[in-house]
């Protein structure tokens, strides 16, 4: 270990001295953005439960973060997190997982948690591929990309997961890339403060699997690509579908208030308790 410590190291487990990711992987930038958001908000790690699924991005909170972490089955972190939040509404429950995990096998959980508006903060790390299992096509893979499961180029249209979750009714949805670490941090802070379902999509580089098939190059080439091709939500709204081809629309898509599920359950429980007491007295 080095003698001097990174200031965010106080939020990580002392015995975990290395991340599980490949050199230059965007997961580390997202991990730091999450910890910085927690630090800037002055929150305590003891008040957090981090829930992740299966995939490289699912290794962001566990084993690194010094908090309660649930590393669940593939696609199910939102379902587990829903249970945690309803059982412990006092806790900050954050889901951190990949695009394969949260949009493919776990897509329905994500959509319905947004619809129900349960107070979770979901950080969806979108690297456009199944990184951990060797680079298969994901629902987010760009059209035409040759992957190991689409040797002639994928013929499927990618899913815009942020737009989907906006349509599902989430009160907070934002998208940034790993070339925007400060904006990412700011939106994670807003997501944590939102009483309701918040999703922050982080477009992130997988220089190993996506890099290999896309020939996009090294981690630094990805970041340059993100910088060059991203366009703000407000600017994009004036452009046609053709003009937006290949662009990454970034920004905060929705930020509203609406009644939240776990607090409504608490209110109901309280009300039922009072009714039961009155009944017992009679």
């Amino acid at each position, binding site marked *: 270990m080095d003698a001097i410590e990174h200031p965010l190291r106080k939020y990580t487990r002392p015995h975990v001295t290395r991340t599980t*990711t490949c050199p*230059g992987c965007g997961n580390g930038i997202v991990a730091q953005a999450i910890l910085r958001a927690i630090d800037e908000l002055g929150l305590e790690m003891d008040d957090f439960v981090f829930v992740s699924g299966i995939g490289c991005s699912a290794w962001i909170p566990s084993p690194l973060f010094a908090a309660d972490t649930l590393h669940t089955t593939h696609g199910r972190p939102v379902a587990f997190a829903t249970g945690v939040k309803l059982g412990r509404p006092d806790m900050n429950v954050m889901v951190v997982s990949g695009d394969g995990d949260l949009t493919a096998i776990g897509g329905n959980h994500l959509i319905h948690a947004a619809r129900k508006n349960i107070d979770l903060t979901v950080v969806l790390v979108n690297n456009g591929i199944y990184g951990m299992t060797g680079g298969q096509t994901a629902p987010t893979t760009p059209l035409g990309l040759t992957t190991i499961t689409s040797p002639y180029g994928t013929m499927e249209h990618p899913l815009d997961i942020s737009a989907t979750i906006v349509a599902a009714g989430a009160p907070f949805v934002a998208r940034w890339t790993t070339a925007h670490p400060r904006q990412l941090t700011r939106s994670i802070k807003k997501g944590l403060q939102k009483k309701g379902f918040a999703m922050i999509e982080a477009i992130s580089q997988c220089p190993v699997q996506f890099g290999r098939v896309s020939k996009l190059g*090294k981690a630094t080439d990805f970041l340059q690509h993100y910088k060059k091709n991203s366009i703000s939500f407000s600017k994009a709204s004036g452009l046609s579908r053709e003009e937006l081809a290949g662009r990454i629309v970034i920004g905060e898509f929705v930020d509203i208030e609406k009644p939240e599920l776990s607090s409504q359950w608490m209110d109901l429980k309280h009300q039922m308790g009072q009714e039961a007491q009155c009944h017992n007295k009679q």
Partner: protein
Amino acid sequence: MSEIIILKNSCKGIEDCGICMSVCPKNLFAPSHEMNERGFLPPRVIDEDPCTVCMNCMVSCPDMAIVVAKKKKTKEPK
């Protein structure tokens, strides 16, 4: 004035990562000549003086291997 600290054993190497080198507006990082204990080649800081404390390197390092401190402090051994 700033102090740029490279936590060299956390670094995963400028060959495959090198993000710090690409995000520094003042090009203050260069390859070092010595591998860290994991066999990666960390960057080294050429000159601290031009640093604007923009923190790009610190917030973009995926392995929390860079700390930029605003003022020069005397290093305390831990």
